[in-house]
């Protein structure tokens, strides 16, 4: 091996070597020009002696070799001339060069003359080749041997007794050609492997690097083999592959095994691989434990699947040779053999196999499940995966079928799918769950049976509920929201036109999301509620009457579910949301003519209002929602309605701030006047509400005067005026033009009082209200007449 010394020394040695080559080449050329064979041999041998150096790294040695190589081409031409002229027979020449005392120059010369010898056809190519490859054993130094044999390979490439070649001999000559290349390959590989074991241990890594630089010299032989015309499938199957594999396995060298297996896969045709799969795969478990088998095997599977994709007509062959079973089997054996293989390696193999299956046998879902099953089996020894790379591979493994089938429904049929997921850590489970949801969204897959939904929720349970030992604190709030929004969106994708099945679906979803805990429920419950309400609407649209008791999918039943679901929010607690949902439900119940149900929902909403909603702003919002909903209800009997409206007006008047009270109260006025045919039309109570609102507005004004020294805005009055106008138009008898006129005057007075601060928006509001009155007047008709009496100026 190389002695210590810097790169400078090496440069110098190379320069010396090159100088030696050039000098001797010069004398050699002179001898060639003067047809002096003896001198030509002498100087060429001296030139080749430069290649005897042990001081150069492979890279530099290659440089030197190439220079000598060029010169040898000239010498070969001279030899050819010489033998053609007849001044020296090629047989004599073949002997003559063997007189050289040093083995390396001797063998380079022998190969060179050998090339001429074959070309002369004075002896069968196979004999010469056999002699050359045998004699080259004299070089046992790895680097020098590799280059010499590479030279032999180079000069013999176009002279193999291949079928159809001009050097083809008897019927059996193709065997000789193959035998020659194989032997040279085997010897080269042995030398290459040996390189690793020679020299000091501390340079081991460096040697590995150097060897890597030389690998193509060895691999070239396989390339030559693949180019031999006569190597047909039979020959490949019977001779070439077994011999190569034997060498690969026996050399017991990681680097060589990895490279050569890869080489085999790359250089020989896919068709051959397919037909020799068993042989090829049987080598894998025999490789050294540290060989990166997964990469190689993946390459093979990739190649074959591309092959299948490119030429669909070969697919029957894949089936015929049971490619899947063989791969599956081989992977199992490799994993068994390589005890130390990290989980990531095994999983990567399964990913490749899965990709292969998906591409080659897209119709065989059972294969996919088998792969996943095998993966589960491999993982079963372990607890959850901690290796992030392995996790990544599992995600890839699980994502592949989703991508392929673009339909989660297919994946849900894979019994092993969730079992694989079980080995993921919590955060990855979530990632995977998101992938699944995204896949559903992207492909707008509709999942339509409760069984599948059960399975789906099992898959995405990481998002649905807290996992054991999960540390939620770590999770970013944004991310969490994102996740839960995804789940909420997912719920809308669960749909079946059959009502009963849809009901089942709802029950399933409910069952799962109720496990979600306080943080998740606010996101998921609304989706469920609305999804359920959608069903309610559908049922209602279908037929008004409920047909018998046997049908489980009745609105009543659904409302029960809804009730439970919303109730769950109380633990969050999220009263505002619950309140809204109750109101939504109440409205739906209203449309279904289910008075008790609607009443119950209102009751729940009111309880929430009373007990849970303490924030004044929230109260305002809530009260307006209640008013709005209640206004639209039309199924309540007088008693129920009175109770509810009474409660509502009561709440309104008890709001904290006077203006809020005022606004709520005037809003309540709508509760007593609906446009429906058989709706309530109680003008007296409308007026009562409005008067009460005025009183409150007045009180608010006074309070403002006392506390701030300036009266508040007259906006409230204008708002109330607008309400008056609304009901005036509706034709409530109690509201006359006099009442409105008074109110306008009141506003004017208020505006002009000293303490009032002019507010442009109020001014504008008032002005536009007056303009509206004028407009109505001008419009004429019955409304116009009513307005006629009101003076706006």
């Amino acid at each position, binding site marked *: 091996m190389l002695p210590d010394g810097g790169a400078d020394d090496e440069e110098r040695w190379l320069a010396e070597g090159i100088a030696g080559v050039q000098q001797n080449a010069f004398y050699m050329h002179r001898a060639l020009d003067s047809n002096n064979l003896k001198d030509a041999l002498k100087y060429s041998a001296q030139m080749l002696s430069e290649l005897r150096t042990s001081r150069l790294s492979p890279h530099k040695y290659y440089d030197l070799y190439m220079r000598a190589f060029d010169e040898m081409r000239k010498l070969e031409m001279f030899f050819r001339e010489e033998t053609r002229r007849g001044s020296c027979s090629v047989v004599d020449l073949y*002997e003559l060069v063997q007189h050289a005392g040093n083995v390396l120059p001797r063998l380079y010369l022998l190969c060179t003359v050998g090339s001429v010898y074959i070309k002369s056809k004075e002896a069968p190519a196979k004999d010469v080749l056999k002699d050359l490859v045998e004699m080259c054993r004299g070089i*046992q130094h790895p680097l020098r041997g590799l280059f010499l044999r590479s030279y032999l390979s180079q000069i013999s490439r176009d002279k193999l007794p291949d079928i159809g070649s001009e050097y083809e001999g008897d019927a059996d000559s193709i065997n000789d050609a193959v035998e020659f290349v194989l032997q040279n390959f085997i010897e080269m590989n042995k030398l290459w492997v040996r390189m690793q074991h020679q020299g000091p241990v501390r340079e081991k890594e460096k040697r590995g690097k150097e060897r890597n630089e030389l690998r193509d010299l060895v691999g070239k032989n396989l390339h030559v083999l693949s180019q031999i015309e006569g190597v047909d499938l039979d020959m490949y199957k019977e001779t070439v592959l077994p011999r190569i594999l034997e060498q690969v396995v026996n050399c017991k060298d990681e680097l060589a095994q990895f490279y050569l297996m890869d080489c085999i896969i790359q250089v020989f045709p896919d068709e051959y691989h397919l037909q020799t799969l068993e042989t090829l795969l049987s080598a894998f478990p025999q490789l050294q434990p540290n060989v990166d088998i997964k990469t190689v095997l993946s390459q093979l599977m990739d190649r074959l699947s591309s092959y299948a994709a490119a030429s669909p007509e070969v697919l029957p062959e894949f089936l015929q040779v049971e490619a899947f079973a063989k791969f599956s089997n081989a992977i199992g054996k490799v994993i068994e053999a390589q005890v130390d293989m990290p989980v990531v390696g095994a999983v990567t193999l399964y990913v490749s196999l899965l990709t292969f299956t998906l591409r080659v046998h897209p119709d065989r879902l059972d294969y996919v499940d088998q792969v996943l099953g095998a993966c589960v089996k491999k993982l079963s020894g372990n607890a959850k995966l901690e290796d992030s790379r392995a996790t990544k591979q599992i995600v890839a493994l699980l994502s592949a079928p989703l991508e392929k089938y673009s339909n989660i429904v297919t994946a849900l049929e894979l019994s092993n799918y969730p079992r694989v997921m079980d080995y993921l850590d919590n955060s990855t489970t979530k990632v995977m769950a998101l992938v699944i949801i995204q896949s559903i969204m992207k492909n707008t897959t509709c999942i339509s049976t409760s069984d599948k939904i059960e399975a789906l929720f099992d898959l995405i349970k990481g998002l649905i509920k807290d996992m054991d030992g999960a540390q939620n604190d770590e999770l970013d709030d944004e991310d969490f929201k994102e996740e839960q929004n995804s789940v909420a969106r997912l719920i809308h994708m669960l749909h079946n036109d059959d009502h009963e099945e849809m009901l089942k679906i709802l029950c399933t979803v409910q069952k799962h999301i109720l496990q979600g805990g306080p943080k998740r429920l606010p996101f998921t419950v609304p989706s469920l509620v609305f999804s359920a309400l959608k069903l309610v609407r559908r049922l209602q649209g279908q037929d008004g009457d409920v047909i018998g008791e046997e049908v489980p999918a009745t609105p009543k039943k659904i409302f029960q579910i809804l009730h439970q679901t919303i109730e769950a929010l109380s633990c969050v607690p999220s009263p505002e949301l619950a309140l809204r949902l109750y109101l939504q439900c109440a409205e739906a119940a209203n449309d279904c003519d289910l008075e008790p149900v609607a009443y119950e929902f209102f009751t729940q909403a009111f309880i929430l209002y009373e007990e849970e909603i303490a924030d004044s702003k929230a109260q305002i919002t809530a009260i307006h929602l209640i008013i709005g909903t209640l206004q639209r209800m039309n199924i309540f009997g007088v008693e129920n309605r009175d109770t509810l409206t009474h409660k509502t007006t009561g709440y309104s008047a008890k709001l904290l701030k006077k203006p809020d009270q005022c606004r709520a109260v005037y809003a309540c006025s709508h509760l007593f006047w609906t446009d429906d045919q058989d709706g309530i039309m109680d003008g007296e109570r409308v007026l009562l509400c409005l008067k009460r609102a005025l009183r409150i507005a007045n009180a608010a004004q006074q309070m403002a005067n006392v506390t701030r020294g300036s009266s508040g805005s007259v906006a409230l009055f204008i708002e109330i005026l607008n309400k008056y106008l609304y009901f005036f138009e509706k034709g409530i008898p109690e509201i006359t033009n006099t009442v409105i006129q008074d109110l306008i005057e009141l506003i004017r007075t208020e505006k002009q009082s000293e303490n009032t601060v002019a507010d442009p928006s109020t001014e504008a509001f008032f002005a536009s209200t007056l303009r509206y009155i004028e407009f109505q007047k001008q419009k004429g008709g019955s409304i116009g007449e009513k307005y006629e009496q009101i003076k706006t100026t």
Partner: protein
Amino acid sequence: MNYIVGAFKPPCDISIAFSDARTRKQIAVKNDNGRTVMVPVFQSLETISGEVSVVPVPGKRIEHLGVKIELLGQIELYLERGKFYDFTSLGMESYYGHLSYHHHRSPKLSFPIVTIPDILAVRELDIPGEIYEKKTYPFEFSTVEMPYESYNGTNVRLRYILKVTISRNIMGMGSIVEFREFCVRNYSPAPTINNSIKMEVGIEDCLHIEFEYSKSKYHLKDVIIGKIYFLLVRIKIKNMELEIRRRESTGAGSSAYVETETLAKFELMDGAPVRGESIPVRLFLTPYELTPSYRNINNKFSVKYYLNLVLVDEEDRRYFKQQEITMYRLLETAQAS
């Protein structure tokens, strides 16, 4: 060749020519001056024939007591410095006066000892008389037994020489001599039994290898085929090589001397193997200057060949195992077929 005795200019020029010089195979050998000369190659029981021509210096007359040609086989040994030998008494000092070549190869050896040449055959070419003008004498040695090959080693040399002598013993003038060297190579048939060499060796708990060479006997242009199988490797091996070594042993008893020389170093493996690796061996012998193995040649010397497998570790410690192989010379036509 100019091995002229005495201070006088030789009165004549003697040359020895082989009759089939044109067609006969020749090989290059280094003479004592370090020059490469081409010499003809014969094998045992071949007929060696040719012509000796004597050309007197114009105007001179050579009176002689007879002319003869001898076929000599001789073994020359070089032994360690410090030992004393009386060569002068042999009267051949000038003939062996040039040792620089051997000096160069084995500096520790400087003084030669010579065994008396073995006269294998003699032919009288002329009766005593006078030579006035160029005179040629055909000669022929038929089916001479030359069981030993020419050999030029580190400490020993085996040579074959044709020696022409014009004998004179008049007025103090010595005989006139001329030499002509030739080379002898003998071929063996391929051995009928040629077992492989197979052996498991090692250092306990440290290194265990098994090696196999396909044969134990190789001809000179053979290929060594084999493999090295590593059963256990606990040391950090840097490389492995196969050596061909020649062991030349001379003399006997107290004067025995062994010289080992590595003729080939052939790297088989670069780097450290692991258990179970098998490394091929293929070594062509052609490029190396090898001879057949010689066993106790004329009781003077032996030459043996060994394959030495050497493993070198990162601390440059060498672990080796040596195996003898037998080399032989295969008739080249036979080899070609």
